[in-house]
């Protein structure tokens, strides 16, 4: 029994090690491919960047705003029910900055992007691979790693950074609106407490998170999108792409928060 367990754990550990090594090799090959940027004219990837930014950023705007509004409101409901009524207006800005701007904003935005665009990227690439589209690009002398992955990373960084900013603003508005049902806080006082609560560190941390999410989400999803070697493997790898990107995003969020705030 113990032997079987040891074999199982050992083989799992070896497979995780092999997977990480394979991903590192893939990442290195993309970095190496950046050298062929000199052969690439920007117009070839311009349309991909625009389309991906539209899908990942613009098309996700409504759902991001609704979720931000609801989360902002929820945070304030919890705060108002837990904190003493007297002098609560002084805390609301702090609470929103700590919970929304530092943690929930970047993470919730990343989760929405993974659910919408990460799965779409993995599916699109695996279908393109299966239908020999990627092979045909390679045979045209196109550096597919650069042509497929690089524009998606650019689009993802632009989209996630913008979405996090919009998420935070809308969540603050949601929080303010809910707070008005319980306690009257003038708009200018609320705005001032928010500004006072924000530090330069918060802005840098949010930007670093959006940059890392912007790189890791398309990178991991493209990695799994390029994996299937037959049609029936496509859903397996798409599912892996979503789950593992979620996992990595949560870890990244924790690491950045620890580095900045602990």
């Amino acid at each position: 029994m113990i032997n079987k367990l040891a074999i199982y754990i050992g083989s799992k550990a070896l497979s995780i090690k092999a997977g990480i090594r394979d991903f590192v090799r893939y990442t290195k090959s993309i970095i190496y491919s950046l050298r062929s940027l000199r052969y690439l004219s920007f117009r070839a990837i311009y349309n991909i960047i625009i389309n991906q930014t539209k899908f990942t950023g613009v098309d996700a705007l409504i759902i991001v705003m609704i979720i931000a509004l609801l989360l902002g409101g929820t945070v304030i409901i919890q705060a108002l029910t837990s904190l003493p009524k007297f002098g609560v207006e002084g805390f609301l800005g702090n609470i929103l900055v700590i919970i929304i701007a530092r943690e929930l904003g970047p993470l919730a935005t990343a989760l929405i992007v993974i659910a919408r665009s990460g799965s779409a990227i993995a599916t699109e690439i695996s279908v393109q691979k299966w239908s020999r589209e990627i092979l045909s690009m390679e045979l045209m002398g196109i550096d597919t790693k650069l042509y497929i992955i690089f524009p998606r990373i650019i689009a993802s960084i632009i989209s996630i950074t913008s979405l996090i900013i919009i998420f935070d603003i809308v969540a603050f508005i949601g929080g303010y609106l809910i707070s008005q049902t319980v306690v009257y806080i003038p708009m200018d006082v609320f705005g001032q407490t928010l500004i006072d609560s924000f530090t330069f560190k918060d802005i840098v941390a949010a930007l670093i998170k959006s940059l890392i999410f912007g790189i890791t989400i398309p990178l991991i999803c493209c990695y799994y999108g390029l994996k299937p070697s037959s049609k029936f493997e496509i859903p397996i790898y798409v599912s892996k792409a979503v789950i593992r990107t979620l996992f990595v995003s949560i870890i990244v969020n924790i690491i950045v928060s620890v580095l900045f705030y602990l």
Partner: protein
Amino acid sequence: MDELILDVKNVTYSLNDVTLLNNISFSLKRGDNLLVFGPESSGIGNLFDLIVRTDTGYEGDVIFQGESLKKLDYFGQLMHKKEIGYVHGDYGLISNMTVEQNISLPLEYHSKMSAADIKKHVGEIIYDLNLDHCKKLRPIDLTRSEMLKTTFARSIVMDPDLLYLEYAFEDQCPLNVKTMMNILIERSKLPDKSLIIITFYPWNFIDISDYFIMFFNGRIVFSGGKEDFLNSDNPYLLQYKNKSIEGPMVIL
């Protein structure tokens, strides 16, 4: 013109301990057209791995335009692929691009031409191939012949010296691809352009081929010119022409 565009020297190519090509040698002069045929698993499909995809795991050497393909680095391989126009019967068209965008893609990626020049050049090819009516459509909306013509247009848009057609016409109506065949026939006469046609149906390309090579079990079992192809009593060739399962080739 006696310059060799392709020289395959004593190539033995194995994959997973199976020998796919066994000591293969042949060459192609610039301006000449080569037809390669043979039954399934004879090795004709594996020439693609060597010449177009630039796999390097083989013995021997493949020289293209005076340069050994084994010695190319990553970027050299990309530049080499750009020099060959490749058409496959499975098309490989980019599904989220229109016909016009599919054909423009190699030019947009590689060339320094202006957007207006690309549009004009692609427009001429589209006109020549009778694709004007569907140039704004995506591959999902095209007929088989339109897809093949788009693939063909994309392969010649960079005006490559070597065009490599692999099972390109196998499932096509000869009437619908007539315009494409006419362009191919004209191209086959050019002194500086070469063709390699991989097919199961060599008799469809007799008029445009200068040399014929037949493969079986990873070996060349027949090679010769047009007259040899038509008149040779090579037993492998006769069995293939007669579509017989009896002869020197054991067909499973």
